[in-house]
């Protein structure tokens, strides 16, 4: 009897164990279903845009999980540089800011999306032309797909304009009329026309660039900084400083945001997205006082923009999926408009431009239908060829401008000095 009981107990244990083993095997079978992971590296607020597109992606690709790796803006781009240089920890899709697209396009680390199996050129007409051009390098390779853009705009304080008897046309007619209007605003209200004379220089040097030329170098790496557009930009900036029309504060500094809050800065040239930042955190108390217009003297410029790219080192099996993901982010109307509405990410997809959202008044801009203004700007902007030394050149020009503005350095000498420095690195 005792023996039987003992045996039955052993049988019970064996049954329980085998049951558990069966359950385990079934669970493993479920896990073994082909489930892939696509890694997307992004920075704020692109990470949020990607995350909000995930429900749609999961509906289309239930077997592919998307992992979003988010880092701060600079950290993200440093990490992408390191990942590309070593081919380690490469994401399947990387978000890139326009400045980095230009830099990375010089190297050979990103997939050429114009080749098969991507064939982005068949979608070229869907993208805003200048943004597509920005992703195309001098060899004709398209290294990224544009997701959002930053059409340039002039934001101005309508209350200060009214007080000084200045109209929007006075601001935008020409650069000279803009500066003259600034003098009136300063006299009547004490407010500065702009945060820094550099802001105006940045736009003026971008106007009148010959097709094929870059901002600082031409296609043969000849330096262009002594050309008339630089001379004019420096002269205008000097005029602004001499008349004390700029607050001498740089973007994103404490003084800059205080200037907006306190109404001491009357206008700001920037990307359309700035009005969103102003509304959300920079100067929400000034709601209703700002308006947006085109930049002075019919200038059109781009301020920032986001692109998605596929690194060459990604496993071949993931590349097709990565491309499908990029298509969803950049060519899907719903995703593009969702990002525009939630994060002020101005769409690079032209097909969204007929959406009624563009016609809606913006409360922060006193009910102005400003998106229509920006939509028009987006179609007029032209892409500027990128040179490897652009980032250095930018710094050199700003330094020389500071010397002209603060120390009274002669403009011709300043630009010649810049030319010498840029020449030294033209072919590095």
């Amino acid at each position, binding site marked *: 009897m005792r023996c039987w009981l003992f045996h039955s107990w052993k049988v019970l244990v064996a049954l329980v164990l085998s049951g558990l083993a069966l359950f385990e095997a079934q669970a493993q079978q479920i896990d073994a279903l082909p489930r892939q992971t696509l890694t997307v590296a992004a920075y704020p607020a692109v990470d949020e845009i990607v995350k909000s597109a995930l429900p749609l992606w999961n509906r289309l690709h239930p077997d592919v999980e998307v992992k979003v790796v988010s880092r701060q803006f600079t950290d993200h781009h440093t990490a992408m540089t390191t990942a*590309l240089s070593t081919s380690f920890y490469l994401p399947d899709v990387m978000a890139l800011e326009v400045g980095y697209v230009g830099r*990375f396009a010089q190297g050979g680390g990103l997939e050429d999306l114009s080749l098969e199996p991507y064939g982005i050129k068949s979608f070229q007409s869907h993208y805003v032309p200048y943004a597509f051009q920005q992703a195309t390098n001098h060899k004709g390779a398209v290294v990224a797909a544009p997701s959002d853009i930053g059409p340039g705009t002039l934001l101005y304080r309508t209350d200060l304009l009214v007080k000084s008897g200045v109209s929007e046309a006075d601001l935008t007619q020409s650069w000279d009329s803009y500066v003259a209007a600034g003098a009136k605003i300063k006299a009547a209200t004490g407010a500065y026309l702009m945060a820094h004379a550099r802001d105006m220089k940045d736009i003026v040097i971008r106007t009148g660039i010959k097709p094929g030329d870059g901002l600082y170098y031409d296609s043969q790496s000849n330096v262009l900084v002594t050309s008339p557009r630089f001379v004019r930009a420096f002269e205008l900036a000097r005029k602004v400083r001499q008349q004390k029309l700029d607050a001498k504060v740089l973007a994103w500094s404490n*003084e800059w945001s*205080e200037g907006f809050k306190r109404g001491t800065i009357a206008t700001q040239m920037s990307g359309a997205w700035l009005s969103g930042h102003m509304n959300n955190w920079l100067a929400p108390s000034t709601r209703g006082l700002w308006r947006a217009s085109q930049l002075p003297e019919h200038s059109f410029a781009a301020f920032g923009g986001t692109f998605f790219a596929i690194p060459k*080192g990604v496993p071949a099996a993931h590349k097709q999926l990565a491309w499908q993901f990029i298509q969803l982010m950049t060519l899907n109307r719903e995703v593009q408009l969702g990002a525009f509405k939630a994060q002020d990410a101005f769409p690079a997809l032209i097909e969204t431009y007929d959406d009624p959202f563009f016609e809606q008044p913006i409360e922060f801009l006193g009910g102005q239908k400003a998106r229509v203004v920006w939509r028009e700007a987006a179609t007029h902007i032209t892409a500027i060829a990128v040179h490897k030394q652009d*980032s250095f050149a930018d710094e050199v020009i700003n330094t020389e401008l500071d*010397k002209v503005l603060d120390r009274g350095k002669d403009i011709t000498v300043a630009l010649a000095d810049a030319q010498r420095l840029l020449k030294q690195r033209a072919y590095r």
Partner: protein
Amino acid sequence: MKIPYSLRMSPEMAPYVFLSPFVLLFLVFGVFPLLFSFYLAFQSWEPTSGLEAMKFVGLDNFAFALQDDWFWKSLKNTGWLAIVSGVPQHLVAIPLAYFIHSSFQGLRNVVVGAYFMPYITSTVAIAILFSSLFSTDYGLINVGLQMISHVPVLSWFMPQNPVDWLNDPDNIKPAISMIVFWRYVGFNVVLYLAALQTIPKDIYEAATMDGAGRLQQFWFITLPSLKPMIFFGVTLSVIGGLQLFEEPFILTGGRGGSDQAGMTTAIYLYRMAFDFNDFGAASAMSWLLFIVVALLTWMTNRLFRPRGPSV
């Protein structure tokens, strides 16, 4: 509990096993980057194209660095900052340590702790705090100067307009020096306090009996006895000063400020690599900086090295 024989470590292996965590980390994060940067200094490399894109260019990067105006400018900035922030650290720390040593008994640790606090505080927190203090229109430093300027006599020495600390090239370096001085003076005080405690009291007693005053005791006993520690402290300041990076980097938004007035060589190296994409030249410059640091350390050694039969 007895460990099975098979799991026991042989006495010959034990030192290597115990040393291995450090050695491994040192090899990976110390030796490898050193050798790699030396290798890179002779290459031209577009980093985003991958490791295979490197091209041997001989001494090109070194030649470029030596002809580069900005490299020399950054070296000058670094030298200026190292001297202006470094020398006062020691000139203040030695008498201060002597004062704390001789005048504070019970409260000594609290006072030393207060001076040491900036040294152990995060550089980022310090730089952010100071960038707010140095703000031209709304910073406390300018508000303070403005208040002082209302005092009749003092107003002669005060600037009429708010000082643009972080955007005017003339003011960036003094602003950075102030922070570096404030941050490291406490560390030096601790060094000198430790050294002061090793000076035998009998010498001071004998000096007092011989009629030496406090100043004479400081000059003829304390200072000579501190010489080995001064050598150590100055060497640390020379090396630290020439590698200055974090404070100016954060204060100038990672760019080095207007006219690159706050751009130290360490910042320029970083920018050459990560902003201007020239890893080869950046590596060459880092080795040139190493030569400068080594030379100056050697000179410090020559200047402060304790001499005489006791060494």
